[in-house]
C-alpha cells in the first residue's frame, strides 16, 4: 500500500503510521499499516475483533515493539515524545483496595505520600477536571464502588489531568449503555474543543463513529480505508474490513432501479430487500430511487456490522 498523498501535509497530522508491522508468535497482527491522524480532531479506529486495533494504539503509546515508523510530526523535530492520556477498555482491578476516587487520582500526581494527607493544589486541580466530566460528587466515594460508566468518567478525568497532546481511548463505551456512549462522545467533543488535544478512539460502534468522528481508519491487520467517515465508510471498505462480502451479494450488482429488475429475476426479492435497507452510501452505488441515502448514513450504518 502506498502512503496517501495527503500525508505530505505533515503539520496537520498529530500521528503518522508508516509501514507499521507487528508479529506476535506466528500471528501477523499488523501488516504494513499506513495511515494518518489529523491534529486536534477525533480519529476513530474501526475493525472487527482481533483486527489489531488495541495493538496499534499500544504501538502509538510506545508500549510494544513494532517495525516501520510511527511519527509525531512537530514533536519529533523538537526531540520530545507526546504526552499521552489513556483510557482502557474496561478497568479490571481489585475493587476492595480502600481508596477514594480522590486518592486514586492523587496517587498518580502527588509527591507527598497519601498517608500524610492530600495536597491542596493537586486536589483543586482534580476537582476542576472531575467537574468537566460531571463527577465532582464522586470525589470522596470509594473508587471500587463506582459503576462502569462512572469509572470511565473518572479515568477520562485522569487522562485529561495529564494534559495530553494525544488522548487514546480503547472502546470506552463498551459496557456502557447507548445513552452513556452518546454522552461520552458529546463530553469528549466539548473538552477537546476547549483543550485542543488529538483524540484517537477505538470503536466497534459505526453509528457513533459516523456521528462524531472527524476521521476514521478501517483496520483489519492492515488499513482498508481512511478519511472522513461519510466518505471513507463505503460498503466496499466495510466489507473488506469486516469480511462481510462472504455472506452478502455484491451491492454493485443491484440494478439501477429495482423496477428494471425483470419479474422473473430470481434475485428480485433480495434486490428489493437490499434496496430498502441499503443506506450505506446508496448514491455512490448508483441507486436511482431518488431517496437521499447519505441522510440515513449516520443512523443506519451500524447495520452493516
Amino acid at each position, binding site marked *: 500500500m502506498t502512503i496517501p498523498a495527503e500525508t505530505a501535509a505533515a503539520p496537520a497530522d498529530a500521528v503518522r503510521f508508516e509501514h507499521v508491522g507487528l508479529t506476535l508468535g506466528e500471528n501477523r497482527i499488523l501488516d504494513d499499516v499506513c495511515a494518518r491522524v489529523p491534529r486536534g480532531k477525533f480519529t476513530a479506529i474501526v475493525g472487527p475483533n482481533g483486527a489489531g486495533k488495541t495493538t496499534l494504539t499500544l504501538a502509538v503509546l510506545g508500549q510494544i515493539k513494532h517495525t516501520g515508523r510511527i511519527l509525531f510530526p512537530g514533536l519529533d523535530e523538537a526531540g520530545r515524545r507526546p504526552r499521552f492520556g*489513556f483510557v482502557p477498555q474496561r478497568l479490571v482491578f481489585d475493587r476492595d483496595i480502600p481508596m477514594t476516587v480522590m486518592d*486514586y487520582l492523587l496517587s498518580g500526581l*502527588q509527591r507527598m*505520600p497519601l498517608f500524610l494527607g492530600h495536597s491542596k493544589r493537586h486536589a483543586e486541580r482534580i476537582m476542576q477536571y472531575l467537574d468537566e466530566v460531571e463527577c465532582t460528587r464522586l470525589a470522596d466515594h470509594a473508587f471500587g464502588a463506582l459503576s462502569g460508566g462512572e469509572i470511565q468518567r473518572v479515568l477520562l478525568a485522569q487522562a485529561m489531568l495529564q494534559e495530553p497532546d494525544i488522548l487514546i481511548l480503547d472502546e470506552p463505551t463498551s459496557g456502557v449503555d447507548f445513552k452513556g456512549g452518546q454522552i461520552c462522545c458529546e463530553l469528549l467533543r466539548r473538552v477537546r474543543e476547549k483543550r485542543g488535544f488529538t483524540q484517537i478512539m477505538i470503536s466497534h460502534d459505526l453509528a457513533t463513529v459516523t456521528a462524531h468522528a472527524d476521521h476514521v481508519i478501517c483496520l483489519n491487520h492492515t488499513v482498508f480505508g481512511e478519511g472522513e467517515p461519510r466518505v471513507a465508510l463505503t460498503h466496499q471498505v466495510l466489507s473488506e474490513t469486516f469480511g462481510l462480502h462472504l455472506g452478502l451479494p455484491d451491492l454493485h450488482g443491484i440494478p439501477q432501479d429495482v423496477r428494471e429488475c425483470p419479474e422473473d429475476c430470481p434475485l428480485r426479492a433480495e434486490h428489493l430487500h437490499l434496496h430498502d435497507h441499503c443506506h450505506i452510501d446508496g448514491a455512490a452505488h448508483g441507486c436511482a430511487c431518488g431517496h437521499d441515502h447519505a441522510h440515513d448514513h449516520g443512523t443506519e450504518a451500524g447495520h452493516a456490522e
Partner: protein
Amino acid sequence: MLNEIVLRLSDLAATLFPLDCMEPEFMRRAMLGLLLIAPLAALSGVQVVNSRMSFFSDAIGHSAFAGVALGLILSLPPEFTMPALALAIGLLIMYLRRGSRLSTDTVIGIIFSAVVAFGLAIVSRNREASRGVNMFLYGDILTIGDNEIALLACLLVAFLTFQFFAWNRMLHISVNEQIAGVHRIKVSVYQYLFAALLSLVVILCVRAVGVLLVTAILIVPAATARNLARNSRQLFFLSLVFSYVSCAGGLLVSAQQWANVPAGAAIVLLACAMFAVSFVAARLKSK
C-alpha cells in the same frame, strides 16, 4: 559498640511494656526486634495484598533453606547467604514475570520448588544443618542477635524511605500497570525496588516467625486494615496498628506461663483473631 546500642534500645523497648515477663534480656531484645519487624511487615503487607504477591513472598520465605544450603556449599555464614539468595530470587521472579508470557503463578511455582528441593537436598546431607532446620520452620525471635537487629534497623530506614517516595505510585500501579506506564510512571523501577525490599523483609521475618508463618505476618494485618479502612491514609495507619498489636501482643502472650506457645504462633493467632473480628465488623457495617 553495637552491643551497647542494642542493649540501650532494647531497654527502651521494654519500658513500653512494664511487665514481669520483660525482665530477661532475651525478651527485651526480642521485643526490640519485633518492634522493628512490625512496620516492615505491615507496609509491605499492604502492597503484597494490593498487588496479589502473597505467593511471591511465600516463595521467598521458602528460599531460606536454599540460602542455608548455599552457605554450607560456599562456606559462608547463612546470615549472609540467605538474604543474598532471597534478593536474587526476588529479582529473578520479577524479571520472569515482566518479561515472559508464563503466568506469574507458574513462574513462582517453578522457582519455589527448585529452591526448596535444592535446600532440602543439601541440608539433609549435613547432620548439623538439618537440626537447625526447625529454627527456620518455626522461627525463633528469642535468640535474635545484635547483627540481625542492626540489619533490621537498616532495612527499616531503607524501606520507610522507599514508602515515602513510592506509596502513591505503588497504589497507582496496583490499580492498573498499563495506565500508570502510559501516564509516565516508571512502573518497572518501582516493581524491581519493591521486589528487592520485599525479599529482604521476608527473609528477615523468617527469623521471627518461621517459613511457615512468614506470609501471615505480612498479609493478615494488611487484610484486617482493608476490612476497616475507607481510604489510603487509614489503610496505612490501621495496618501499622494491627501489626504492632499482634507482634508485641503475641510476644507477651507467648511468655505467659498459662500460654506456653512459641512467639511466632502467638503473633499469627492474635493477628488472625483481629482479622476475624474486623471481618464481622465490616459485614455488620455494610448491612
